[in-house]
């Protein structure tokens, strides 16, 4: 008793507890440790660690062949990793290393929690089916069996990605590149995923369309609060969207930090070279 009385009063004992900074209080949604992937004798991804917090946009930059897209494919569970630990902080997947899931479980995780937009729309879309069908397919995989509901979900997802609804039943084959990317985006967000992977989403589009698609992405990020991982070699895209940046080279992470920090004051020689490289 006397012991307690002799202790000096704590600074928060008057009932006021300051909020800890948000990033300290939040647990990362995506936690990746030691992600490794070999292609024959080439180590494409070399023990990469990543943390992505809920609602955050993490950019991955690097030159061609640095392993950016491989990281995306591994995170989308569409390719087998050689080593590593990958966790998504959702109640249903607590304590599970997603890289160790079997094919069937991986498919269900992918269709429920993860959406992906590829640089090449041929990878993400069925070119011969209708655009609305491409979006609805994600919901069909997760078991939606009401046509009206599918139709409504496809319409609202396409609308959210600012796709002209009078063309929703045209096949992506006949659409422009920018519209194909919007269909991919709608397909990715239709099941309301927790994690959105964007693999060079605007590369190959001309500058004005690129700006429009980036606008859509920013708005979606604000409205849905979805966590995003964006891969790009275009620092302009990263500067527009990302909160935090990871710089990759030869499959390794060479530098990581806030976007402004990295782009204005790069520390690593490779990052300095990347930031200052201009034609």
């Amino acid at each position, binding site marked *: 008793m006397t012991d307690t009385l002799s202790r000096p009063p704590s600074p928060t004992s008057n009932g006021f507890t300051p909020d800890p900074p948000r990033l300290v209080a939040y647990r990362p949604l995506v936690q990746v440790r030691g992600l490794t992937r070999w292609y024959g004798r080439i180590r494409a991804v070399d023990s990469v660690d990543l943390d992505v917090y809920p609602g955050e946009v993490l950019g991955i930059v690097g030159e061609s062949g640095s392993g950016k897209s491989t990281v995306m494919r591994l995170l989308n569970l569409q390719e087998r990793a050689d080593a590593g630990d990958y966790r998504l902080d959702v109640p249903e997947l607590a304590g599970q290393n997603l890289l160790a899931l079997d094919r069937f479980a991986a498919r269900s995780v992918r269709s429920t929690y993860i959406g992906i937009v590829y640089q090449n729309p041929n990878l993400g879309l069925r070119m011969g089916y*209708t655009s609305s*069908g491409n979006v*609805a*397919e994600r919901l069909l995989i997760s078991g939606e069996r009401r046509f*009206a509901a599918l139709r409504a979900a496809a319409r609202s997802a396409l609308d959210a990605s600012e796709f002209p609804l009078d063309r929703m039943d045209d096949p992506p084959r006949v659409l422009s590149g920018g519209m194909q990317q919007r269909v991919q985006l709608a397909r990715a967000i239709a099941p309301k995923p927790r994690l959105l992977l964007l693999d060079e989403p605007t590369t190959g589009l001309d500058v004005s369309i690129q700006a429009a698609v980036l606008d859509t992405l920013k708005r979606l990020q604000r409205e849905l609060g979805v966590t995003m991982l964006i891969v790009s070699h275009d620092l302009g895209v990263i500067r527009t969207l990302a909160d935090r940046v990871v710089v990759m080279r030869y499959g390794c992470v060479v530098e990581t930090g806030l976007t402004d920090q990295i782009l204005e004051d790069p520390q690593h020689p490779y990052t300095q070279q990347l930031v200052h490289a201009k034609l």
Partner: protein
Amino acid sequence: MTTLHDLVPPQSGYSYAFLDPFAKRELRRRTLKAVAIPGYQVPYASRELPIARGWGTGGLQVTLALVGPESVVKVIDQGADDSVNAANLRRFIMRMSGAATTTDTLAATIIQSRHRIPEERLRPGQVLVLQVPDPEPLRRIEANIARARQMHADADYGQMWLTLYEQIVRYRQYVEGASYPVLVNQRFVMSPSPIPRWDTPMLHQAAHLTLLAAGREKRLYAVPPYTDVRPLEFEDVPFQIEDQAGWVCRHTGAINKFMIEIPQEDGSALYELSDTGYAEKLAARQRGEQPVIGPTYYDDQGRFYHDGYLKPPAFPDI
């Protein structure tokens, strides 16, 4: 001590029911496996037969593996007992096994059929053997058979449903004519061989055993008695059978049974029953004879015998 040698029947140039005992044993084992896993396609060693692949060799091999001297066999081809193909198969089975043959659905124990199920309800103990040209329902969406088998293993049927979505978007209804994909026992998507949509519901909770065999593709699969067979359909867009309202058989006056259309020179059309065995019985009754006519899957008002299985049509807003 009894040796394996003693158990083997004496070697002879001919074998009962054409196939050698080992071939029949393999077929029966495969059939048992197919029955154990409803809707699953079991690979088997398809044997050479004195008819060409694609003319019912799958069905014929299963029939030959099942048939015995006391069997009664009926063979139908698109509903008809008297087509060349059906008559040839029937004569071949009869010569090779000594089994009796019939055109009466109720009298038969084994019914081998191409593309139709008889109108009269099959009863427990009867076996329906369907000839299958293409056993793989995913063929049109996945050309790679190895990949299609993996999709079956994962129950990965999203793309199958997508094709139905596309049909409704384009035509506001399902447009699959024959061989409508079905989900067997809530697990495997199965192609019910090219039977018309009219016959698809007959497989659901049926009293008889259905065996489906493809000779060229070397696959056989089964629907055991009293198994759920549901056409793939959206909850708000029900599956529909062929609309043959107002079609009357020109020979028997029957209605609400599956008909074939016979175009006339003046552009009009006449109709007659596709199931000739059933038509024959109706004609006999009209002549004043008293054939035994069993209950049919669809009654004269067109109602299916499982209440609530078929639902009224709905055309969704696009």
